[in-house]
């Protein structure tokens, strides 16, 4: 039995609880340690470790890797059956293609996973932990993931509240650079939204909170300004985007305040209310050039995007399947390539021998006659070669061809 050309052992958000994933979360620095532990048992090795998955992609002996995992993760043997998945050959390849395309992610279609898989492979290439065999798989995986992203809507539309807030802001403002964001509240949601806006390149993040201390802490993370709720008016007048998430039982932003701020500006203002009960008076949306979105509006968009991604899922799976088929055919063809070459050489060798004998017997033939006979025999051999080669290629593409290859070799004594 031949050893698999690629194997995967791993666990993810679907197969294992977070406590176990935490224990088996590795940094890039672990690569060397794993490989020195496994000695020469692994010829190629890639480690993918994200918050939702840890996967070992390798070529070699699996048992030693499992032993290592048992040691570092304090695992029982039964844990492998309960929380891990193991794939070999084309099954492993299919899993890898699906992971890279975002089909196996917690948020289906997320973009980050492709970058993480790419980095993992590139690191292994740099350190010579992966070579030609994995390089080819890596190229095919990238092609598949890119096609899925290009030809389907799997990655279109945000699905988290914070990223939808940023997306909506881009629908109103052409560039977020030069825009000022005001976060009202200093809780987790405000922090998450702040990170998204900060990464989107806003000019300044201001934080207004009942406790100025907490506001300062959060503002420091974004090198922004902190305000108390008493100074809210000043901050509002300066802001282009306001996101509010406080525990206040009444409205924090009233219509008159925004009306005053709008009287001095021509640019639109975007207000996002993710608090329950609401922080922003919904009547503010009646003002010209002011847009108020609450948590229900954002959830509605998230739901729509999730549905859209769900609809694209089937098409994405088809692409993965097609790419796998192409890979399989390519592998099969490359495996029979040497056989076809030797078959060709054998038949042409027979032809050359017989032709030489014939020319010796018919010494009166002129050079032009010999040339004509040579061309004719060459064509006969090519025509004889044509059908068996095509049939062999077709059969090899279709299914497991080891038996056919053996028969072929026996038939022609190759």
């Amino acid at each position, binding site marked *: 039995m031949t050893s698999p050309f690629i194997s995967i052992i791993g666990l993810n958000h679907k197969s294992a609880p977070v406590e176990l994933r935490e224990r088996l979360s590795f940094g890039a620095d672990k690569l060397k340690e794993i490989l020195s532990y496994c000695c020469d048992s692994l010829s190629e090795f890639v480690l993918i470790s994200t918050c939702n998955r840890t996967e070992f992609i390798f070529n070699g002996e699996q048992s030693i890797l499992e032993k290592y995992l048992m040691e570092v993760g304090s695992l029982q043997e039964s844990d492998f059956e309960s929380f891990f998945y193991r794939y070999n050959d084309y099954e492993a390849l299919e899993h890898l293609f699906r992971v890279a395309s975002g089909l196996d992610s917690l948020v289906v279609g997320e973009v980050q996973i492709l970058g993480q898989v790419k980095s993992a492979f590139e690191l292994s290439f740099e350190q010579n932990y992966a070579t030609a065999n994995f390089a080819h798989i890596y190229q095919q995986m990238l092609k598949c993931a890119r096609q899925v992203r290009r030809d389907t809507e799997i990655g279109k*539309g945000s699905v988290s509240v914070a990223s939808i807030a940023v997306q*909506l802001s881009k629908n109103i403002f*052409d560039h977020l650079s030069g825009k000022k964001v005001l976060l009202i509240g200093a809780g987790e949601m405000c922090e998450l939204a702040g990170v998204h806006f900060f990464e989107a390149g806003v000019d300044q993040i201001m934080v207004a909170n009942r406790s100025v201390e907490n506001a300062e802490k959060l503002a420091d993370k974004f090198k922004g300004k902190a305000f108390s709720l008493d100074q809210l008016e000043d901050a509002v007048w300066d802001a282009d985007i306001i996101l509010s998430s406080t525990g206040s039982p009444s409205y924090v932003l009233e219509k008159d305040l925004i009306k005053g701020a709008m009287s001095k500006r021509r*640019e639109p203002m975007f207000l996002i209310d993710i608090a329950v009960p609401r922080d922003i008076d919904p009547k503010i949306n009646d003002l*010209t050039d002011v847009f108020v*979105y609450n948590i229900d509006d954002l959830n509605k968009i998230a739901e729509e995007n999730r549905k859209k991604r769900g609809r694209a899922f089937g098409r994405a799976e088809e692409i993965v399947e097609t790419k796998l088929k192409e890979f399989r055919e390519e592998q099969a063809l490359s495996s029979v390539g040497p056989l076809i070459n030797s078959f060709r050489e054998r038949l042409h060798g027979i032809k050359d021998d017989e032709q030489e004998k014939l020319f010796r017997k018919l010494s009166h033939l002129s050079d032009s006659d010999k040339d004509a006979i040579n061309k004719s025999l060459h064509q006969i051999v090519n025509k004889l070669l044509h059908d068996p080669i095509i049939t062999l290629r077709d059969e090899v593409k279709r299914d497991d061809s080891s038996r056919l290859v053996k028969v072929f070799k026996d038939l022609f004594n190759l």
Partner: protein
Amino acid sequence: MTNVLFFSVYALFMLSVTGFCTHALRRDKKSFVFGTLSSLLGFLGLTILLITQVLNAEIDNLLLTNWLMAVIYYYTAYKTKNRLLGTAFMPIVLVLMTFVVFNDGTSLLTKTTYDGQFFLIMHQALLIAAFAIFFFTFAQSITYLIKLRALKNHNEMALDQELPSLDRLQQVFSVSFNRGWSAMTVGIAFAVIYYFKKDSEGFNELKVIWGSVLWLFYTVLFAMYNTKKMTCRNLARAVSILFLAFIIFYGCISTFGPSEASALTEVVK
């Protein structure tokens, strides 16, 4: 030959309108591509038509306006990635081409013979530019209002990929509105100079009156908007109404008004 070319261009623009409208309703990429390709072919035909006119030393102002509008449209749609602009814009091109047909039967509209008078030529060139920009401003105002409405009603999902940001739409709209007014004002100033020099010879009075009224309204809007007494939304609404009024009036005077065949030049188009 020119008639065949003219009607081919007309048909291509009609196909383009169909493509763009289907795209707006279904939001499928193929219709958009179809609309764009038809319009590009139509534009190519229109360019050839204008070149043949130039070679014959005569040029149709309305067709030239259309051509200029198309150039502005392609530039802006490409720069702002506004996929709905064609839906609002192409019908205007078609309406103007319809005026060309009804004015002179199957032949092209009244020609302008350039007599080398600087003021008249400047007046015509600037007004052609002004109207091209003004018509384009109308198309832009429609997409701006669509986007504004979608954002206000929290229904932007359907449109967010077809239109650029509200901010960008507002910028393009205000720039084209202001430039259109500037071109029209300077163009009218040249007409006034020419009028005094030539003692009103060759002017179509009905169009002069209508052109002045239009300019007056335009000026009021320009002043109110630029002194921040009018919001962009209200300006977009006003521009839409002004455009419709213009098209209806222009259509009426072109179709039912006195014949201009004897006029040497046409000033306000």
